[in-house]
């Protein structure tokens, strides 16, 4: 087919989106393979949603190129739409419709052939665990159920690429877990799943992660790659009293690359873990800070992100893993 590119399910080349003077997406490039779960990680306003909207053909890129399922999002938006499923950040099914009415409506919107629609609606209901609730008003469903229904609606036309924009925000942990099982199932069937999230544990489930900050892609790789290669030095967990002054004191120590608050403790990046564990307690004591615990820990994605950007992904909600 003309203009089709089958090697990558999504290919993005120096994508830029500006709103007036504000650059929401700044020269982002990456490519995904079919069946891949591709995570977008970053704080609010990092450009995750904007990038996803461009890829869905909802926003026009200011410059750069994006090809989704073989079609250019700027020139072939309609073809793109036939091949993607999209779940926006805000729950966006019709609350006044019944579960099955929402499914029927979206089957119609995606022009699912009539003879296939009924079977697929049944499958979607089974997948979402909504059997027996087909005739409930959507408004009465709990958060996790709504999300699964929304996912069910967005895959009725069997899209090649699925875009999920923070699909699990505001959903309880068990429902999140169930939702991720569905995502894995979908990817197993060859669908490329794009997920944006700011839950660290969810990021670990992705095949590959793109870390975004202020519109730019700051790192790209598997969760392990990111943790291994991007962390400079080793990571120590430090429990200190009082915490505030301890942070400041540690940041001035030449052996410390970086220090940041994680929950009730500090994560301290050092060049040499063994040397630091012996020298730092004494150094802290000299400055009147008591150190109750100091030990090496494996870095989390949050540590990687903080080190790369100096920012938290989710202020106030992050604890050490």
């Amino acid at each position: 087919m003309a203009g089709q590119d089958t090697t990558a399910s999504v290919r993005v080349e120096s994508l830029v989106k500006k709103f007036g003077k504000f650059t929401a997406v700044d020269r982002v490039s990456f490519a995904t393979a079919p069946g891949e779960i591709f995570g977008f990680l970053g704080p609010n306003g990092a450009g995750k949603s904007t990038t996803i909207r461009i890829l869905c053909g909802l926003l026009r890129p200011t410059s750069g190129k994006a090809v989704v399922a073989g079609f250019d999002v700027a020139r072939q938006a309609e073809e793109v739409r036939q091949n993607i499923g999209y779940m926006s950040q805000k729950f966006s099914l019709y609350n006044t419709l019944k579960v099955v009415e929402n499914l029927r409506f979206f089957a119609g919107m995606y022009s699912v052939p009539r003879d296939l629609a009924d079977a697929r609606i049944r499958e979607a209901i089974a997948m979402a665990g909504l059997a027996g609730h087909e005739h409930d008003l959507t408004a009465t469903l709990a958060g996790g159920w709504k999300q699964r229904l929304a996912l069910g609606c967005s895959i009725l036309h069997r899209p090649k690429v699925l875009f999920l924009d923070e699909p699990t925000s505001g959903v309880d942990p068990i429902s999140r877990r169930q939702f991720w099982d569905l995502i894995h199932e979908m990817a197993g069937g060859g669908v490329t799943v794009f997920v944006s999230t700011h839950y660290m544990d969810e990021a670990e489930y992705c095949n590959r992660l793109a870390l975004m900050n202020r519109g730019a892609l700051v790192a790209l790789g598997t969760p392990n790659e990111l943790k291994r290669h991007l962390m400079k030095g080793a990571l120590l967990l430090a429990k200190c009293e009082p915490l505030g002054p301890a942070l400041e004191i540690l940041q001035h120590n030449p052996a410390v690359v970086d220090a940041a608050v994680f929950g009730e403790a500090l994560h301290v990046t050092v060049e040499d873990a063994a040397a630091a564990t012996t020298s730092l307690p004494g150094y802290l004591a000299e400055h009147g800070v008591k150190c109750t615990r100091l030990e090496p820990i494996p870095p989390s994605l949050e540590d990687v992100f903080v080190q790369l950007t100096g920012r938290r992904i989710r202020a106030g909600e992050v604890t050490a893993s």
Partner: protein
Amino acid sequence: MARKELIQIRRDPRSLFIALIMPVMQMAMLGYGVSLDAKHIPLYVYDQEGSQESQALLKRFQASEYFDLVKTVDNYRELTAAVDSDRSKLAVVIPFDFSERLRDANQTNVQVIVDGTDDNTANLATDYARAVIGQFSVDFRTEWLRRQGLPVGGGGTVSIEPRTWFNEDLESRNFIIPGIVALVMALVGALLTSLTISREWERGTMEQLISTPITSQEVMFGKLIPYFAIGLVDAAMCVAIGVWWFDVPFRGTLTSLFATTSLFLIVILGIGFMISVAIKSQLGASQIALLVTLLPTMMLSGFAFPIDQMPPVIRAITYVVYSRYYVTILKAIFLKGVGVRALLAPVMAMAIYAVVIGWMATHAFKKTLD
């Protein structure tokens, strides 16, 4: 799309209210409220004479449907107090020499006190009173002459026959009801459609919707077909209320009514749709919808104020007010019973309007968030 919209309308009490209850309320409110007729004017009488003749005159007032004789008083103070306190709109004072002067010189003087605060009612009340009194005096004179054995009509009686020119049947309702039908259609049609797209933007469902392969034309038709159907139902309801409740004659055909109403609906729904596309909040959209439909239809369509009495500049403006044509057509269909052919000019104007607005509306909606 259309089916979803219908289900949503059915489950949304507010839409249902606007679609079905509001037309009835509007019809009732405006049908009663905007009547330019004065009937049952509260009347106070001070009969100073209390003769057979004066009582006969009072009977005439009582018999008239335009007056309700509230009270007969015996002093001026009570009379003026009644007018002052709005208990009476019109007070009649019959002088003590009423019958005498009536017989002698055919020169009676009846004092009529009118509450002039409501100019329109005051004028009508005076006219009606003059008519009642004039007729009484003519009848009395004729009767008196006949009894005297004198030739009737030879006495040089001058009869006054007041006529209310702007409303010969004294039924302004006949003219107003068709206008109200137009008003209700404009209001309901534009209000409902203006809400339909903006509601989806507000609730975030639009983002989901435009991520599907549905075309913008499909969105428009899906959105508007249900409202078009509702509009036709509303029109039928309004006309039914007009004919059976307000006794307005309907002399035209239903075909011409629905044909022209369809044109009008295309214009109104198109306008509502474009507002809805342009303004993404429900509140803003409904405000603008009221502004561009209710106001021109009220003021400039010839519904309340006759177009040919407007200053030339305003009259020129009315030519671009779409409802002007519909009001003209409706009045003609209701009262004159003419068909579409006789109304070629306004129907053509509406058709052109429908095509232009329809074209603009189909191009107004863009499937993008930019």
